């Protein structure tokens, strides 16, 4: 697998590292969704994500839909490029996935 999903006890966030594409999107969703399910303000730290495609972003969106009404799901520290993809996908508004701070 080209990515890793780990809960970070110190920040309360879930950290994602690596590359997420269509080949791994389903597993990504299966790993991430349970870690977000019971959090009131779920945050995903994507500072370690070097690539994510439309299937990966769709998986992120589906995770947000399975959070038992909590949310929105906040994505923090994506690269500028990943942040630009998320904006194109419509994640910068008032939807279930919103964009937090991007890194340089």
């Amino acid at each position, binding site marked *: 697998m*080209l990515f890793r999903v780990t809960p970070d006890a110190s920040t309360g966030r879930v950290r994602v590292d690596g*590359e997420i*594409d*269509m*080949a791994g999107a389903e597993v990504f969703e299966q790993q991430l969704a349970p870690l977000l399910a019971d959090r009131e303000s779920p945050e995903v730290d994507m500072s370690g994500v070097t*690539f994510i*495609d*439309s*299937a990966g*972003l*769709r998986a992120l969106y589906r995770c947000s839909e399975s959070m038992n009404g909590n949310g929105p799901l906040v994505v923090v520290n994506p690269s*500028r*490029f990943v942040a*630009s*993809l998320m*904006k*194109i*996908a419509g994640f910068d508004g008032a939807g279930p996935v919103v964009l937090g701070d991007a890194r340089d």
Partner: protein
Amino acid sequence: VTSEIISLGERLKTRREELGLSQSQAARELDVARTAYRLWEMEAARPAPDRWRLIARWLGVSVATMLLAADLIDDDEATQAQTIAGRLGAGDEWDASVDGAKDFFDEERAAIDRRALEGLVSGAEAVQLTSIVERLRSTAGAPRSEAWRRASLTKELAVEPEALAVSRAAVIGVASNIPSDRLAVVVQLTSELIADLIQAKVGQDLTSCTLAISVLPAFVRVRVAVPRSSARPAHPVGDEAGWGWRFVTQLATRWGAGSEGEAYIAWFDVDLPEPGARPALTAVS
């Protein structure tokens, strides 16, 4: 892998030596200053458009071949132009009959329009040729000596999820010297095109595709081709497009999809900045 291309400088030098001429004599035959000719041979400068036809004739090649040698068009564009010319029975689709130092681009556009009206080229072919001419118009002045390193790769890929990472590695291998913000876009969109094929594969006899990556001085072009019989119609725009195609349409400089001969092609171009210019960020408002 594409065949080796003989550069314009090399062609000029070889031809000059065949004719037993000095650089000054060759410069006189091509009606330019000796210094300019010397720079062409050294590939430190490219000829201006008003010399293209004359140089091609002097070299004994088509204008398309001359433009390919000068890094002004890529293999695909040269092939398109030559194929159309071959079918017309003309020596050169870039209108070798038109002489001289008039505006090359306006004349070519007029010639293409004329042939389309006469039914000698199809509407789609006319659009292809016109787009090549228009791109040439915008890039003809770029100095070759500072251009991005030319490179290309053609690779057969199985239409399987594993091909996604392979395609990204292929892009990085071929285009690693372009600015990182542009490389990120090319990697992203290439992976999206392959992912689109994997999705399209469901219920169809689609096993492999051809990925072609070309890094040219002014832009990077990526084409993905599959046999037409095995592919679904393209949905590059509209509700069915999904985010992948939305990325293509918003981040690529030019893009397209459709049938071409016996293949279904999806492609995009990402323009490169002038070398030395401050890299532009991929801005999305």
